[in-house]
């Protein structure tokens, strides 16, 4: 048996938070001057006084990964509620009102109800999770998320024995999300789902921050899911509802194109998308002359999660 030692990430490999801070201050200054239109700004950092920069390391089964530059992670997002363009969402998402924020917990739980985000967070210890993020479009980056295990939130609300699946729903706010207003491309609001054992897995987290700061709006503030062994579209942003179900929910992409996007969406180099290969990925920030990287089964988290799918044909349950 191989015993793995888990080295922590050298801080030198992570983008200097000072650079990040500057950008945030710039945005704040712009907001103060009324440049961006919205008068309200608040990462809930301001509301709950989280010390983002001294967050302890969370569960890190992998060898250390080098974080992608924060600038890339903040300006390369698929946030289709705002735009189909990955950079445009950065400015468009700034109008999203995220404070106050509440999350409805419903379905097969002992304690359903509408919870203030602050109340949910006060029960959790924030930790840093540095994960590879692999998009179904065949690119990847490494993001140092700040959050807590989804399991620890679910345990607090006590799932009933009938709970087999978890369904997540994004905010429906056509006033700030133009593609919801115009009913473009997908059926809104965005819905995603996990099997109960996937949801309870220690790698599955709810993120509220990244790169030593509050989560930027374009990255899914104030609360998003991160499931590192699945394609990025599973990691739903701006969550307003978590519902525990007896039956599998139908996720937005599966509903829109069932042959292209399955319920599981596990990263798998051997199961191509019907129109493109998943065998390799472009590593963002790697530079011009670095070729693609070979995609790993379960995005490299196979040791931890392969057991969840041991008796399943992954070609069928893609």
């Amino acid at each position, binding site marked *: 048996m191989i015993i793995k030692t888990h080295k922590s990430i050298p801080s030198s490999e992570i983008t200097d938070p000072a650079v990040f801070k500057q950008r945030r201050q710039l945005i704040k200054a712009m907001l103060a001057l009324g440049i961006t239109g919205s008068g309200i700004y608040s990462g809930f950092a301001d509301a709950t006084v989280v010390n983002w920069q001294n967050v302890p390391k969370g569960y890190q089964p992998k060898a250390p990964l080098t974080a992608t530059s924060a600038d890339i992670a903040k300006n390369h997002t698929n946030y289709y509620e705002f735009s189909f363009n990955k950079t445009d969402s950065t400015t468009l998402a700034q109008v999203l009102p995220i404070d106050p924020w509440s999350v409805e917990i419903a379905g097969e739980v002992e304690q359903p109800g509408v919870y203030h985000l602050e109340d949910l967070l006060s029960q959790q210890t924030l930790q840093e999770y540095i994960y590879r993020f692999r998009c179904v479009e065949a*690119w990847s980056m490494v993001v140092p998320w700040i959050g807590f295990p989804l399991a620890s939130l679910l345990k607090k609300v006590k799932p009933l024995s009938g709970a087999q699946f978890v369904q997540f729903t994004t905010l429906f706010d056509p006033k700030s999300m133009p593609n919801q207003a115009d009913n473009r491309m997908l059926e809104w609001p965005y819905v995603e789902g996990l099997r109960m054992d996937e949801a309870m897995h220690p790698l599955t987290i709810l993120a509220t921050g990244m790169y030593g700061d509050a989560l930027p709006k374009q990255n899914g503030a104030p609360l998003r899911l991160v499931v590192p062994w699945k394609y990025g579209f599973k990691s739903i942003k701006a969550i307003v509802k978590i519902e525990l179900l007896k039956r599998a929910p139908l996720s937005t992409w599966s509903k829109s194109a069932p042959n292209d996007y399955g319920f599981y969406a596990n990263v798998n180099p051997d199961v*191509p998308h019907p129109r493109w290969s998943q*065998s390799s990925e472009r590593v963002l920030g790697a530079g011009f002359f*670095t070729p693609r990287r*070979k995609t790993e089964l379960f995005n490299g988290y196979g040791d931890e999660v392969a057991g969840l799918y041991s008796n399943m044909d992954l070609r069928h349950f893609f």
Partner: protein
Amino acid sequence: MLLRFLKLYPLYFSLCLLPLVGIVIDMIFDNLGADPVQALHIRLGDWSLRLLWLTLFITPLQKITQWRGMAQYRKLLGLYTFFYASLHVIVYLWLDQGLAWAAITTDIIESSYIWFGVTAYLIILALAVTTPKAMVKLLGKNWKKLHRYIYIASGAVIIHYYWQLKGNMAEPLFYLIILSLLLLFRLAVWFKNRQFTKMMIPTTRKIRVVKADAVRVDQTLAGRSKGIVIEEIDSDIET
């Protein structure tokens, strides 16, 4: 004046290089965004598509305006299409895939949208190779037949574009509409010519020789033409 402006060959030659200059500037100043290789790849692809569409625009333009000598511009645009498409392919093979042929093979086999890109490129390559006058002479009648494959290439390009997207149709749809208009124009011309040809075919098998000097020529042609009236207007008479 307008005509003279429209026929400045060196101007068009340089204009076609401008997109490349823009791309190189963005490369130097690191303006290609978070995924520069993909941005480069897409921009080269976009320009080869636009130039292909412009190439297809020349024939209708010539038909409508009756301008002569447009063939050289069609050739210029066609060759630039090939130039940008080649850069697009090189970026894919070299920068994106690092010339790892096994990985490239897997990628192409598993990606149906690339099959259409490969089809389009092979056609455009064949058309570019047969551009020199010597090749035109060598191929004779077949040259025109071969160069009609540009329509298949343009259809393949549209599919290649659309199939790599997750469902945002706006841009491919825009190019599809323009392509449809260009092809419809050709269909209309072909249909009109067909009707015209029908009217020209007489019912008798008579050959009418218009000028006595041309008898010899007509006799040779007579064997082939079945009852088509030959109006011999030979410039030899004037010289």
